[in-house]
């Protein structure tokens, strides 16, 4: 990915992210979120993570955000009277979040900026990923199944009207 493309994409991504936060209407926020996720997936392509790219679009942007939209619609949530709290609070949060970003950025950029090395053949391919997933990451994978079970039980328990 060339620097120019990166910068443009990054700007768009950040803009979309800010739109998620600043948009008055939750539906628009959700749409901005979809945009952000989609834009992010472009970086995954740039990083040669094709499977992740696909999943990002399908699972994340597709399934999860749709779930959001669904709930928003279901609950018919009104738009907020004002998007943001008092300017002082906003400034404070801005400073805090900025400091966080700066701090993390400071930490991660202290390492010498070397160009990314070339990767082996098949990097990011489903086969490779699957192999890792079922060997080194077998336990996490299994735990994920438990997690999803918990989520199902939980969502059912909380969601259903009568026991």
């Amino acid at each position, binding site marked *: 990915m060339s620097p120019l493309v990166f910068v443009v994409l990054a700007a768009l991504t950040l803009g979309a992210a800010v739109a998620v936060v600043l948009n008055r209407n939750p539906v628009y926020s959700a749409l901005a979120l979809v945009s952000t996720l989609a834009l992010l997936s472009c970086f995954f392509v740039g990083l040669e993570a094709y499977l992740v790219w696909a999943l990002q679009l399908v699972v994340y942007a597709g399934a999860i955000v749709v779930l959001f939209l669904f709930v928003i619609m279901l609950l018919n949530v009104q738009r907020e009277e004002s998007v943001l709290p008092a300017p002082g609070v906003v400034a*404070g*949060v801005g400073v*805090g979040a900025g*400091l*966080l970003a700066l*701090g993390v950025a*400071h*930490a991660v950029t202290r390492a010498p900026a070397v160009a990314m090395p070339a990767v082996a053949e098949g990097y990011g391919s489903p086969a490779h990923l699957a192999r890792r997933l079922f060997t080194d990451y077998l336990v996490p994978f299994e735990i994920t199944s438990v997690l999803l079970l918990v989520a199902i039980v939980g969502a059912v328990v909380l969601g259903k009207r009568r026991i």
Partner: protein
Amino acid sequence: MVITVPWLRWIVLFPALGVLLHLLAGRRWPRLVPWAGPGVVGLAFAVAVAAVVRLAGAGDEAALVDPIYRWIQVGALDVQAALRVDWLSAIMVLVVTGIGFLIHVYAVGYMHDDPDRTRFFVYLNLFVTAMLVLVLADNLLVLFVGWEGVGLCSYLLIGFWYRETANADAGKKAFLVNRIGDAGFLLGLFVLVKTLGTLEIAAIERQAATLAEATLGGWPVPLVVALLLFVGATGKSAQIPLYVWLPDAMAGPTPVSALIHAATMVTAGVYMIARLHAVYALAPAALGVVAFIGAATALLAALIALAQTDIKRVLAYSTVSQLGYMFLGLGVGVPGAAVFHLVTHAFFKGLLFLGAGSVIHGMGGEQDMRKMGGLRSHMPVTFATMLVATLAIAGVPPLSGFFSKDEILWGAFAGPHAQPVAGVIGYVVAALTAFYMGRLFILTFLGTCRADEHTRHHIHESPAVMTVPLVVLAVLSALGGFLPIPALAERVVGEHHGPHAPLGVLALAVALAVGGLAVAWRFYGTGGDLAERVARAAGPLYALVRDKFRIDELYAAVVVRPLYALADLGARVIDPAVIDGAADGAAALVRRAGERLRRMQSGNVQHYAALLLVGALGLLGYVLTR
């Protein structure tokens, strides 16, 4: 030579058993009390006489000792509860048990109708027990047991008629003032323990040399000890500045006044100093203090006595005054004379009090001399015995007071530590004594009766059980001057053979006594209003004397009220406000911090998230800047 005599303890035990007997059986068999009360004292007297006989047979320097048991032993301090009879304590023990017995007998009559008679005899027996411990003690700590014990009994007996708050107050005052003295006494003991490691009187005498050299914080120990012990003596024997309790102590029943506040307890200080003459001999300066305090007390009390109208109060101040004489004697180095006066004073002052009691008894409780008069005809025995006593105390020869007083006064000029100024005061006091005693006697017995009709009707002579002791004491008061007391006492307290008083001096003393009585007669016996005129002429001075120089008020202002103010400061300010304030304040601080922190818990989930962010920033900041 010290002889072990294991039965000496019975002198103390008999009265103690009396206490127990009265406590246990007094309520069930009240008729036992009038017999047992004096009886046990009589038994003690008998044992004491036996002891004296034994002592007399053992040579001049001998002493009888009864080592009963080891009381306290810690480290080097070893306190034996032992009794010791030498000639000094022998004299005292005879006085205590002998006069004690007479007064017990008298009390049987005096307290005949009192519902609390049993309690009275419990106290009285207890007093005799304690007093005997005091005089027989071989060890200063044991002596102190008796010393405080008599104080306690004094407290109880003064407040015997406890329903009157004033009586209870007087008892309390007596105990507290005595305690002040006792604190001094204790300090003296501590110094002795520190210096010598013992409180055994004989051992202290043996180690006099060590004592003489010792210093405490730069002060010679003998001086310190002598003065501290003297503080104790001023309390017990009612000397300046601690005499104030004794006049109030007259609130007790009259036999008590006679026994405790005239004959025995109040002389404990005199006895103690005589007992420790070896220590005082090492501190001439202390002796000087003793002499002057004694003289000053004698004068002050005599002056106050001039203007009192309560018959017992006059006698009380007279007692204070006479005790002053004794201290004067001790101070000028004639302890034998002091002890002599102690004994004769016990006779005639005991008699005076008992006589006064008889008068009060006869007058139905009246104590104001202004409402008496002309009792001679109603109470002949009392009148006669009181006359003897008055002449004795006034110093009219050849009655006992003449001899003992003279020895002291002459000692002031010719004694080993002569204090002529004090001696002069002594002579002045002698004249004053004759005057106020004459006044008392005249107002009470002579002239016409000033009591109201009802009282006058009931005036009667006391029963034999009361008058017989009066007569016995009158005989003693009259003839006591011929007892060889000084010689006997000096076997213990060290001989003093100064020249006898020259005839001129004796004549002066007699003249002062007779003169005092004569002036009293002129004032009160001739029916004129001279007394009132003199009083009016003296004006405020008279009021000051009548109000006892306002010493009580002075003490209240200088000691009592500041003390209570301090106590209030503690009770109302320091404890609740300062200390608890600090503790509660700390608690409140934590609480307030909790309240403040709790307000951070606003309930808004985003605030919590913000807090979390702050924490994350803090952690990041820490790790990235370290």
